[in-house]
């Protein structure tokens, strides 16, 4: 077959500038992302992200699958925060079918979602540190993440792709020592976070590297529909858990962390990460409260519908994922398969802002800015 010539205009090419392909095989693109960057010396003048290397037709598959079968596919979107991913989908289907899940299920869901948020932020901060050349905090944070994954494994049987939140309940009940384990995890997480704050976030070199790098003003962030720590790092107090409380988040006392001018400038790479660090602490607080309030007895599977067959209609259900707002626009035609399931992929939307904020910085900064946005290519490409 003859190879077609692909025409696309990426603007004027200046002969004195150098075009550099960062990725798809590059140590710090966090997956198979290809950035076509234009350099003037070491200054980045343009960035064109090319995505889709991991595209696997998620939405097309969903149209062929029955509702419960969709959940494992959803796990594979943002495979670092699978628990959180499943939530908006099952919540959407439950809303369509008018299922009120038991209290105990809600509490377990909150605890797991928050634990997974901690795990995700640990990876985000760790890999961000590694982008800056600090390797040791990476392993400290991964050591703690291991505990969270072990708990998930004991509960759901899987370490990464859990398939745990089901429509109307949960796949399994929690293990007997669940509460103690979770409290123990919180204790360790807090201790390590304190250490990481000193070792990494407060490190003079690290601060110099990340402060005033990749400044994302609040209005630009909103215009690009950024969400999660990227938006909150720019000082916008927007957290779906507070703004549109879903599930039982209105019962907990926690703060929405936003960036500040304290060390960096609002919206810079350092602030995006300090938001993540602070959110881990808030998640710990939520988990503590949830464990204290959680009912001990109750069946987590009693509300399973016999047939998952939402009535004709459509719903957009979103939840605050670690990376931002993950939503599913679900169109049901009354059958047992979704007519259309469109996801609002957080990383996809957040990545779109990258070309906007990294012009004029150096190559090394570009890598840091990319790291501070915290993308997962599984979600970008779907």
């Amino acid at each position, binding site marked *: 077959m003859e190879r077609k010539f692909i025409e696309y205009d990426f603007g004027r090419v200046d002969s004195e500038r150098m075009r550099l392909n960062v990725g798809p095989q590059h140590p710090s693109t966090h997956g198979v992302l290809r950035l076509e960057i234009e350099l003037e010396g070491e200054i980045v003048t343009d960035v064109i992200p090319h995505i*889709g290397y991991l595209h696997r037709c998620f939405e097309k598959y969903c149209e062929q699958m029955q509702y419960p079968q969709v959940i494992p596919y959803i796990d594979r979107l943002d495979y670092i925060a699978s628990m959180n991913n499943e939530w908006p989908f099952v919540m959407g289907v439950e*809303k369509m079918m008018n299922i009120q899940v038991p209290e105990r299920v809600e509490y377990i869901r909150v605890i797991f979602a928050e634990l997974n948020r901690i795990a995700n932020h640990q990876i985000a901060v760790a890999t961000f540190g590694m982008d800056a050349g600090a390797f040791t905090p990476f392993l400290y944070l991964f050591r703690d993440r291991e505990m969270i994954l072990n708990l998930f494994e004991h509960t759901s049987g899987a370490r990464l792709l859990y398939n745990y939140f089901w429509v109307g309940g949960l796949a399994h009940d929690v293990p007997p020592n669940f509460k103690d384990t979770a409290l123990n995890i919180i204790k360790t997480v807090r201790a390590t976070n304190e250490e990481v704050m000193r070792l990494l976030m407060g490190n003079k070199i690290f601060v110099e590297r990340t402060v005033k790098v990749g400044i994302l003003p609040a209005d630009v962030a909103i*215009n690009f*529909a950024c969400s999660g720590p990227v938006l909150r790092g720019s000082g916008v107090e927007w957290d779906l858990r507070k703004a549109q409380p879903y599930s039982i988040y209105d019962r907990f006392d926690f703060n929405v962390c936003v960036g500040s001018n304290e060390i960096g400038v609002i919206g810079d790479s350092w602030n995006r990460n300090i938001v993540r660090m602070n959110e881990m602490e808030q998640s710990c607080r939520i988990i503590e409260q949830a464990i204290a309030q959680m009912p001990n007895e109750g069946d987590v599977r009693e509300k399973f519908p016999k047939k998952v067959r939402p009535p004709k209609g459509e*719903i957009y259900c979103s939840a605050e994922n670690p990376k931002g*707002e993950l939503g599913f*626009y679900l169109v049901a035609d009354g059958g047992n398969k979704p007519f259309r399931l469109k996801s609002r992929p957080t990383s996809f939307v957040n990545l779109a802002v990258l070309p906007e904020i990294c012009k004029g910085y150096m190559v090394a900064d570009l890598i840091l800015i990319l790291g501070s946005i915290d993308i997962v290519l599984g979600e970008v490409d779907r």
Partner: protein
Amino acid sequence: MLVQEIYDNLKEKFPEAVLEFIGTATGDPSTVVDAGQIYNICKYLRDQDGLEFDYLALLSGMDYKDKFGTVYHLYSLKYKHRFVIKTYLPKEDPSLPSVERIWKTANWHEREAYDMFGIKFENHPNMIRILCPYDWEGYPLRKDYVGQETYHGVRIPV
């Protein structure tokens, strides 16, 4: 503000362009508008005091079997209200104005809708495929899509 009030406000401002209000028993109500007017309507929704939909959460392309469509999910961070707009497009050569100049985030969403459904967005700065390879044939999320058999000489498993 309630969805109904926003709809009334919009209907008053654009009597011809706003076509229909779909309220469902379950799920979100939505408003169908004329595809050709989508840019003006969105601009109004963003800039009008009291509405200020500054956040485009999601732009999806749709294939309703007999027609195509686009769906816009809007938030207002200030007033914390949401609104859903829909457009319907003909089967042949679907195209409508781009809202990229209103919400930059629409850039990639519209490219995705083009990539998956072949819906063309006018005035879009860079209307090329985004997820599929640039020389892919067909629009995969259309209901009547039949995949390529080979791509650059490589057989595609079904």
